[in-house]
Every structure is written in structure tokens, then in C-alpha cells.
């Protein structure tokens, strides 16, 4: 197809505008971050990005994002399964509500989760006597990051589950497999690449998250302070170079994740097409 002559007009205009707009809004501004760090010597850069308070924030950001994504992997898979396979009253509404974290502004999510999980909140008051403090602790960070990553696993696994052929499951059953065997040997191998993709997306989204976390986290240095907040704090003190240095570390990690996810999805779609 590539060799065939394309008769449609507008290629130069549309591609030209696309590249122009992309450069103006995304590429040039992003390159500013990398160029700004050249103000610093390598040792200065290293001192800033490995300062103990910053390292503690990486640990919280990545640790809480990982846990949030894992919680979403388990419950997202369950949610997708229940939505695809079972019928129950209110299912359509539940299905639509799964996208709420995507549509609800993060600041609203932040104050709502804080209100609910604070010591006197609807859920917090039941957890507090059990010795579990959620709001203003690292657990609060995990709750917020679980919330914002919730749609990803559900929405990547759901279409794959819908597409599964019932025949293979029937064959497994007729050969004497029980439901658990059918799930672990037939269904799970088919959906796990989608599950992994959803997990990676939820993880990537959580790492950069700011709005929903800062309200519930309490933002105590070394304890519940996330990396994006450190960037903001440095900016407010006009320490542009150090803010940018930390931002560049995060950007590099995010880009690596983006490439990993694109690779994953390429692999998933290739797997799907080789099956047919």
C-alpha cells in the first residue's frame, strides 16, 4: 500500500500543521526543561536530585503509585469480569461510573477523599478505632492514587474479555476442566497482556499526579511529601534550576514508561492479530 500513489489532497498542510503545533506546544517547551538543567554542573545536578528529602519523595511517589496500581490490577480485573460476565441491577450506571476518576477534577477528588477518610469522615471514623489512619499519612497517598488509576485496568481488560471466544471455554469444560482451571489456563493467559498494560498505565498516571494527593497527604517532608510537590515548593522559592533538575529526572522516568507501554501495546496487538 505504501508504494501506491495517494491521490487525496492536504498531506503537506495537515502534516505541516501537526508538526508545527506539536513543536510549539509540546516539543519546544519540553526541551526547555532539559536545556535549563545545563545551567547546573553535573555534580550540582546530582546533589539536588539525590538530596535525602528528594529521595524520600521518590520512594513515596513510586512506592504508593506501585501499590495503587497493584490494587487496581486486582480490583480492576474483578470489576471488568463482573461487568462483562454477570448481570445485576444498576450495572449500566456502575459501568459508566468507572470513568468518574477521569472526568472528576483532581482537586475535587482530593478534598472529597480527604473528607471521607479523615478521622471524623464517613469511612475514616470506622478505620480510626482499628488503628488505621488514612488521611494525612502515606496510606492517604495510596488511596488517592488508587482512585485516579481506577479506570485504566478496567477499560483495558474489558474489551479483551468481551472478545474472548466462548468456544475455547466450552472445549475446556467438555474436556473436564473446572472453572478455576479454565480461568487460570485459558482465560488468564489471554487477558494478562491487557492487564499488564492497564497496570502500567495506572502506574504512569499515578507517578505524575498532584491535585488529588496534596489534600489527603498532609505533605510532611520525609513522610508524605510527593515529588511533584517538591517541584512546586522549589518553584515557589524561585529555585528554578533545582525544580527543573528534579522535573528532568521525573520526565526521563515517565518517557521510559511511555515507551514501555507503547511496546507492550504493540506486542498485545501483534499477539491478537497472530491469533486470528
Amino acid at each position, binding site marked *: 500500500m505504501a508504494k501506491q500513489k*495517494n491521490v*487525496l*489532497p*492536504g*498531506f503537506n498542510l495537515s*502534516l505541516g*500543521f*501537526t508538526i508545527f*503545533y*506539536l513543536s510549539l*506546544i*509540546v*516539543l519546544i*517547551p519540553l526541551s*526547555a526543561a532539559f536545556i535549563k538543567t545545563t545551567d547546573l554542573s553535573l555534580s550540582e545536578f546530582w546533589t539536588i536530585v539525590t538530596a535525602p528529602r528528594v529521595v524520600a519523595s521518590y520512594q513515596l511517589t513510586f512506592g504508593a503509585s506501585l501499590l495503587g496500581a497493584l490494587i487496581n490490577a486486582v*480490583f480492576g480485573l*474483578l*470489576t471488568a*469480569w*463482573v461487568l462483562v460476565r*454477570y448481570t445485576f441491577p444498576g450495572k449500566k450506571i*456502575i459501568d*459508566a*461510573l*468507572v470513568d*468518574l476518576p477521569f*472526568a*472528576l*477534577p483532581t*482537586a*475535587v477528588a482530593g*478534598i*472529597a477523599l480527604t*473528607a471521607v477518610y479523615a478521622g471524623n469522615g464517613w469511612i475514616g471514623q470506622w478505620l480510626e478505632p482499628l488503628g488505621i489512619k488514612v488521611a494525612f499519612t502515606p496510606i492517604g497517598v495510596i488511596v488517592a492514587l488508587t482512585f485516579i488509576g481506577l479506570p*485504566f485496568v478496567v477499560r*483495558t481488560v*474489558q*474489551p479483551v474479555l*468481551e472478545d474472548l471466544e*466462548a468456544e475455547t*471455554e466450552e472445549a475446556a*469444560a467438555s474436556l473436564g476442566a473446572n*472453572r478455576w482451571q479454565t480461568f487460570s489456563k485459558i482465560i488468564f493467559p489471554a487477558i494478562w497482556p491487557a492487564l499488564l498494560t492497564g497496570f502500567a*498505565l495506572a502506574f504512569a498516571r499515578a507517578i*505524575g*499526579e*498532584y*491535585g488529588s494527593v496534596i*489534600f489527603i497527604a498532609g505533605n510532611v517532608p520525609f513522610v508524605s511529601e510527593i515529588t511533584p510537590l517538591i*517541584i*512546586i515548593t522549589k518553584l515557589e522559592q524561585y529555585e*528554578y534550576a533545582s*525544580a*527543573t533538575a528534579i*522535573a528532568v529526572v521525573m520526565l526521563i522516568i*515517565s*518517557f521510559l*514508561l*511511555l515507551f514501555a507501554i507503547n511496546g507492550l*501495546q504493540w506486542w498485545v496487538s501483534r499477539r491478537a492479530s497472530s491469533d486470528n
Partner: protein
Amino acid sequence: MPASTSLLTTQTSAVQSTQYSNYQNKVARSRATSEPVWVRWTLIAIVLLFLGLFLIVPLAAVFTEALRKGFDTYITALIDPDALSSIKLTLIAAAIAVPLNLVFGVAAAWAIAKFEFRGKSILITLIDLPFAVSPVIAGLIYVLIFGLQGWVGPTLMDYDVKVIFAIPGIVLATIFVTFPFIARELIPLMQAQGKDEEEAGLVLGASGWQILWRITLPNVKWGLLYGVILTNARAMGEFGAVSVVSGHIRGMTNTLPLHVEILYNEYNYAAAFAVASLLAILALVTLVLKSFIEWKVARNAEIDEKS
């Protein structure tokens, strides 16, 4: 779906995925390929509990907290001049960001879906970049360029043009965070539709713009609308990026989400939740419209199948 290799797939290919007919309609489940009743209901209960704790209870809390001090306090918080000016600024930012990203989305999808060229997959990945960038960093990069110590900030200052701590910065940050949504929705749709109809139009003597207006856009109108709704929701709700560039000047550079933060940090919870409830309503309206579009697309696909 070769083109759906993107970060956005989860969010925006729903228009496509609803085109798959529902699993249950396809196959009548026999006992051998379903779970016992108690397993089914246990799983449903776990899911409802999980979604209840994380979605439904917080959503209900927004409205309860907003109305805690009565309806009068609620209304007072909304007609406060600072609240009204933040509503206005939020609408302005969305009114500029959404159309610009719409034009970009159509142009990018036209180039990527209708033509073959080298570096296409790199271009698609680059369009995805804003997803991988933390909103805080999105704000930061514009400060580095337009701030007082930035690349062009001092020059602009000489001409009395302010970008950072002013409306242009807020608009730019909003454009950045919502950059890929419409493009990402349109690319797979337009690829799936091929270019036969466009070529037929060309043979019949239509110009490029006529083809775009009369053939391509009507064919992807639901996907387009879907992308616009999602972009709009994100544009009006963006917090981190806008927070960095806004400077939080009350009545001047505060958007709705920033106004919520200010009220909350002043311990004015009832007012904070009242303003937040507006944004929650916006989110609910977005979800309803989204479901409507998915239903519409699924129905159109069914009609196509029958005819």
C-alpha cells in the same frame, strides 16, 4: 485496531469498543462456562464494595458537604464575585483550548490515517507525550519559557505582555494537558474507515475541504464529539499545571479548581465543596454524554449490521 497502540486507548477507544457486541448477547452462557451463583454474587459484592468505597462515597460526600450549612450558604458561595470570575476564566480557558486541540486533532488524524510516511509511529508517540508528563512539569516548562527569568519572558515584559501569572499561561497549560485527546480518538477511527469514500468524492470532483466537511467529518462525528467532551472535562478540571502558572490572584487568575483549593485552605469547607459540586456536576454530565454517545454508536453499528 492497529492504531490503538497508545496511552489513550483505555480512555478513548470506548467508541470503538462498544462496537463489539456485548458478550452476553452473543453467547447464552451454559452452566459449564459460568460460575456457581454464590461465586457470582460474592464477586459482584466485592466489586460494589470497592467501587462504593472509592467512587460512590466520595462523590456523595461532595454534595453532602456542599449542602451541610444549608441551601442559602451554598448559593452564596456560588454567586460570590471571586467564584463567578473563576467560572468565567475556566470557561474562557476551555473555549480556547478545546477548539485549538480540535483543529490539531483533525489535522493530525488526516495526515496519519490517510497517508503513509516515514516516522509515523514516532509522530504518534510524540503526540502521546503530554500524557506521560506530570501536570506540575507541564506548568513548569511554560514558566521556564515565559517566566521573568525565562527565554522570552523579559522580551515580552518590555511589550507589557504577561503570560505567566496571567490568562495566556493558564490557556497554554490547559492546551498542553489536553493536547492528545481528540487526535487520539480520531486517528484509529479514521484509519478504520479507510479512504475509499474520500477517493470517490475526489473522482466526482469535490475539493479537499469539501471532502473533509461532507465525507470525513460526518463519518467520525461521534468520535469527534466524544473527544471534545473528554477534552472539555479535562480542560475545565485541570489543577496541577494551571496551579503552577496561575499565581493564584483572586478574582483574576483563579480557575474553578484553584478557587476550590483556596477556599479549602481557608477552612471555608462549605464554600469549597459548593464550588467543587459544580465541577462534580460537570463530571457527571460528561459521563452521561459519554454513555449516550457509546449507546448511539452501538445502535448505529447494530442498524448497519441488519441492513
